[in-house]
Structure formats: structure tokens, C-alpha cells
């Protein structure tokens, strides 16, 4: 019995090791390359971290454009996440707790909005932001990001709200709480893991977004980090090691968020997938 278990464990961990290598190697290569010079990378190709130096990081941190784009990304992703969480809670609450005509259809429309590829929407969204005078601004970009972060958040939170016992809200109402009070004091504490999960996922989606940012915000002062990284490649010149340094810095906040909130994310995705 013990031997069988041992064999199974070895098999299981071997598979896991292969998957880990597959998933972590790009990350490792990004970080390792970011500490090399371009000449070393091409003249002494190696997957091992050799000829290490900090030049790329110094260049990145000395670049005003990079710092500006970092601040822009933090602003846009931070505000979009906060607003998305608030709107998603209200939308998910309405779609699960309240009874009204067309509720199911509305729920499906939200899923469709969430699943529509950005490549189909970037032109209409660029036109809308221009028409409301919000092109080339962080406000415009935040508004655009809500178009996919709110459906994503709503979709995930619907699962959490469905998990709650319906009587909880009713009991609070009988005790004299308003809907908002019931939501705030009774329901939200119960779906706190869901809120964390939604916040992390929407922040990541907004943080990584490239296409909308590229076409809506042309001016250098309002560029976000993914666009700043893209713009490192000019004409037929691609400073790969510098790009890797920018990318490592850009990936750090998201990796940290995932590390801290991994339990909630797994729970959030499972609940959203099962109950949504």
C-alpha cells in the first residue's frame, strides 16, 4: 500500500515538475535575460544567468517615460479596479438577489460582453472616447477598462452571491435593515474572498491591457506600461534585455498580488465557474 502511494506520489510530482518547468521557464528566462547585456546575450547565448549586471534596471529607473508610464498604469489599474469592484458588487447583487423581468437575459449579456475579444471592440471604443472628449486621457482609459472589468467582476461575484443563503438578506430586512445595509453589513463580509479575487483579477486585466491603451492614448504623458514596453522596439531595433528589465518590473506587482491572494483567486475562479 505504502509502495503504491509512493509510486503515485512520484508520478504526480513528476508531472507537476514538468508543468512547473513549462510555466516557470519563461518567467525565469525573462528575469535572467534582464540582468544581461544585449551583446552578452547574443555573443554568449546561455539559459544560465551569466554575465550579470544591473545596467538595464538602472536605465529603466532613470527613464522619466518609464516612471511616468508606471504611475499611469498604477492609476488606471487602481481606479478601474476600485470602481469595477463597486459596480460588480451592485450588478451581481441585483442579478442574484433581486427579482425582475429580464434578469437572466441581462446576466447572459454581461457574460457575452466579458467574452467579446478586445480586437473587435477597440475601434468602437476609440470612437466613443473621442466623441465624449476623453481620448488621450487616463479618465477615458479607465472608462474603457470598466467595459471589461465590470463584466468580469460581475460574472465572478454572481457565483459568490448564489452561494449565500437567500434567507440571510431577508432576515436582515425583517430586522429593519435597508437593502444597502443588508448588503454592506451582512452579505459583503461573507463574500470578502470573492471581492479580493475580483480585485486581483480586474487589476491584472487592467494592468496588462495593451491594445486599448495603444490606440486611445497616443500622447506620451498618458501612456501605460505595456505601451512603454512596446515602444522600446523602434523601427528594426529591439533592445531585448532592456525590454526584459521593463517587463520584470511590470510583472512584479501582479506577481506579488497573486502570491498574496492566490487562495482567493482559486476560490473566486472555482465559485464563479461553478455557480456563475
Amino acid at each position, binding site marked *: 500500500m505504502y509502495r503504491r502511494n509512493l509510486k503515485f506520489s512520484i508520478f504526480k510530482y513528476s508531472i507537476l515538475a514538468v508543468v512547473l518547468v513549462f510555466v516557470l521557464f519563461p518567467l525565469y528566462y525573462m528575469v535572467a535575460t534582464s540582468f544581461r547585456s544585449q551583446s552578452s546575450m547574443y555573443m554568449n547565448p546561455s539559459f544560465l544567468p551569466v554575465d550579470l549586471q544591473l545596467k538595464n534596471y538602472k536605465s529603466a529607473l532613470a527613464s522619466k517615460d518609464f516612471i511616468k508610464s508606471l504611475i499611469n498604469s498604477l492609476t488606471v489599474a487602481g481606479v478601474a479596479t476600485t470602481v469595477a469592484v463597486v459596480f460588480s458588487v451592485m450588478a451581481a447583487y441585483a442579478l442574484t438577489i433581486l427579482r425582475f423581468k429580464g434578469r437572466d437575459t441581462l446576466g447572459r449579456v454581461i457574460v457575452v460582453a466579458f467574452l467579446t475579444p478586445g480586437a473587435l471592440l477597440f475601434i468602437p471604443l476609440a470612437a466613443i472616447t473621442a466623441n465624449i472628449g476623453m481620448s488621450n486621457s487616463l479618465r477615458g482609459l479607465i472608462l474603457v477598462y470598466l467595459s471589461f472589468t465590470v463584466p468580469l467582476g460581475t460574472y465572478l461575484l454572481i457565483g459568490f452571491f448564489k452561494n449565500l443563503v437567500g434567507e440571510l438578506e431577508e432576515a436582515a430586512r425583517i430586522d429593519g435593515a435597508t437593502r444597502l445595509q443588508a448588503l454592506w453589513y451582512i452579505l459583503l463580509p461573507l463574500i470578502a474572498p470573492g471581492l479580493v479575487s475580483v480585485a486581483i483579477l480586474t487589476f491584472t486585466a487592467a494592468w496588462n491591457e495593451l491594445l486599448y491603451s495603444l490606440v486611445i492614448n497616443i500622447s506620451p504623458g498618458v501612456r501605460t506600461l505595456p505601451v512603454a514596453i512596446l515602444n522600446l522596439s*523602434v523601427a528594426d531595433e529591439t533592445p531585448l534585455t532592456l525590454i526584459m528589465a521593463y517587463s520584470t518590473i511590470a510583472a512584479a506587482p501582479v506577481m506579488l498580488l497573486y502570491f498574496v491572494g492566490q487562495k482567493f483567486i482559486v476560490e473566486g475562479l472555482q465559485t464563479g465557474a461553478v455557480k456563475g
Partner: protein
Amino acid sequence: MKLKISAIAAVAFLAIAMTPAVTAQAATNPALQAEVKALNASGKSYTYWIGLIFSDVANQTASDNIKKWAAAKGIKVDPVMVNQNNLTANITAALTAGTMPDALDIGSGLMLQLGSKNLVNVQSVYDELGQKYGGWNKAALNFNAETYAGKGLGVPFGINGNLINRRLDILAAAKQKRTSPVTWEESLNMAIATKQPGAWGFATGNVGDAESVFGAQLKGYGGRIANDAGTKCTLDTQATRDFLALTMKAYKAGAYASDSVTSDGAWDNNKYLGGKTVFIANPGSVYTTLINGSATWEKNPTLARNTGFSALPGGPVLRVAPSDAWLRAIPKSSKYPELGKDLIRQLAKIGQAKAYYAAAIYGPVLKQYNSFSFWRVSVDPARAGLFDLATNGTSSTFPDTNNAAYAEFGSGFNLSQMVQRYLYGGKSANETIAQAQSTCQAIYDKYNK
């Protein structure tokens, strides 16, 4: 004697009187003045999209020149540096959203695709500048041909195109000649003789470098994309098969690098700068990097000295030196077309152009620019190559007709894909040519309904 002095004085007077006439005309142009007033009244800035090119100094020079012009005009300006690599996406969105700039740098292919529906006709400025600066160089004249579909839609400001960079030291060690290869076959044999894998450092992926080199090779073997009328694709020929045979010879000899198919635009530059290949095609950025260094590469004067530059080789039928241009254009959506024309005139001035060309990797468009010292081989061999391209090069599409269908065929990397199917996909020459011919004809039919 008196008569002679009087005659010289008269000529000098006429010359002086006529030169500022063009500028004065701009200054007193009522339409221009009205636009200045309207722009200032709106409280908005005049927007110009500068196509980011290699060398930050060149981009900054362009931006500074535009700001100086705006200051002189008394208007606010917003020169925005837009990455050339993303220009298509930016323009696609801006056209629909109505957020096109007032003027912009644009590649000839994209200009053709935008066409007269979206761009102001600036032929008068083209003619005026040609007259003022001693005429246009040959490569810039291609944009004035009556048969050119984009005639009048943009004013060229920089000629670009590929030069062959080759490692003289490695070739010498392999007992190969020092002079430049005349044919593609010869250059391939030289690369093979070095016994260095991937010595023929040309890209084979879906990338502009691959498409342009394959185009030059195809034409060298007598191939054509389409007929003279620019309506029917003519890829299914023996010449295309001969061209494919050249690529197969290179592939079987290991002359293409194993990662050539997954290349991006910088792949070949980095290979060369890293000393991993013998031949590449490059517009001058590699030499500039070797001499000045870049954000990621140290200076390498030794490699610079060991590098030979030459025009692209030819084939058994033809030798082409494809040159293309970047142009300045004014979208029809701009409320300030006269300001745009005035800016184009301003940026063409000798002083402005000299500062720009000194940092950019473009060949000169106007003949009066030809006297700048950096075009000399002794000063800068790569810029000398660009000068040669500007003054002697053929159009980027020669002998094909330059039209929107040709541009779309190229921007879809269809030649590269034809080669990839043959070299890596296991398709026969007949199969891959048939597929390319079919795709090509569909594109040409779209434009010739």
C-alpha cells in the same frame, strides 16, 4: 566690365528676391493666417505625429524643429512621437474616432492604402520644394510618377532601403573576395564558404526584412508580383521557381540560421552585432550602433572597420536597389491644411534637414541636401550607401507597379509565407506558388473591381 558687374548684381538680386518669395508667400498667405487665428481661438494645439525612427536624437530633432515652427507661427503644437511599428493600428482607430492628427509622417504603403479619400493633395508643395532645392533625387522622384497611385498625397522627407552589411574579416579568413557580391548566388556561396552556420543572416519569418529581401531576390531572377497594369498576379512562373530554388539551396546548406523563421525586425541586426552572422540586409542602424552604441549595445569600432557595405546583389535577370520613402502627409480631417503645408515647407529647409539627416538613417530627398558631408564614404559608409540609394535606387516595387494591392500583398508577408511553406512546411514549389498566386490575385481583384 561694368556690364558684367551689373549682370552679376542683377542675377544676385533676382536670386535673393526669389528665394524668400516662397517663404514670404507662406507668411502672407491669408488662408494660413486665418487658420492660425482659428487654431488660437479654439485654444487647441496643432498635432503632428512623428514616426519614431532609429536614433532618439533624430526623433528629438524632428520634435524640436516642429516646436520652433509653432513658436514662430504663434501657435501651440503637440508633436507626438508615434511608433512606426504601431502606426497602422493607431491610424485605423484614429480614422474612425475622428482623432487623426493635423499632419503626420507616414510610410508609402500606408499612404497608398489611405489614398486621396483620407489625405490632402500636397502636390503643389512637392513641386514648390523641388523647384526651390534644385530638384528631387531619383528615389524621391518615384513618388511623382504619373503612374504612381499615391502621387501628390505626401511629400517625401527620407529615403530608406537595405544595404548589404558583410563581415570582411570572416570572408577574408575563408579566402573569399573583399569586393561586394554581385549576385545573390555569389553571396550565398561566399556565406557557405565561411562554414559558419547561419552565415547568410537573412530573416525568413513574417517580417519586413524578409519580405523585402525575398522581393529583391524574386525580381533578380526575373519574377514579378503582378503585370504592368498592376491588376493580374504573375507569381506562377519559372522565375519564381528559380528564386525558390535559391532559397532551398541556402536552407539545405545551413546558410539560414535555425531561428531565422521566428525572427522579428531586429533579429538580423542583433545577430550581426553579436558576431553571429556574415551577411545581413540593414538600412544603416547597425553601422550607427557600431559607431555610437545604443541603449543595449556598446560601441564596436573593430566590427565597424570589419564591415563592408554594398547595394543588394542581383539575380541572373535583374539587379534592383529597392528604395522607399517616408513622407509627410496631411489628413483630410485636419482643419488646418495650410498650416500643414507650411510646416512641410519649414521642415524641408536646409538647416532643419541637415540636423535631422545627421541623426536619422535616411538618404536625402532633395538635391541641395546632397552636399552634406556625412554622405561621403570616408565620413560614414552607411550614410554613403543611403545616399547612393537615394540618388540611384529603384522604387521599392520596381519593376512592379506601386499600388495599394502591392502594398497589401507585402504587408501580409505573402512572399515570406510562400518561402516558409516551401522550406519548412514541406510543400512543393508548385503548391506553394499556387497558394501565393491565389492569395495575391484575391488582393489585386479587391482593388480592381
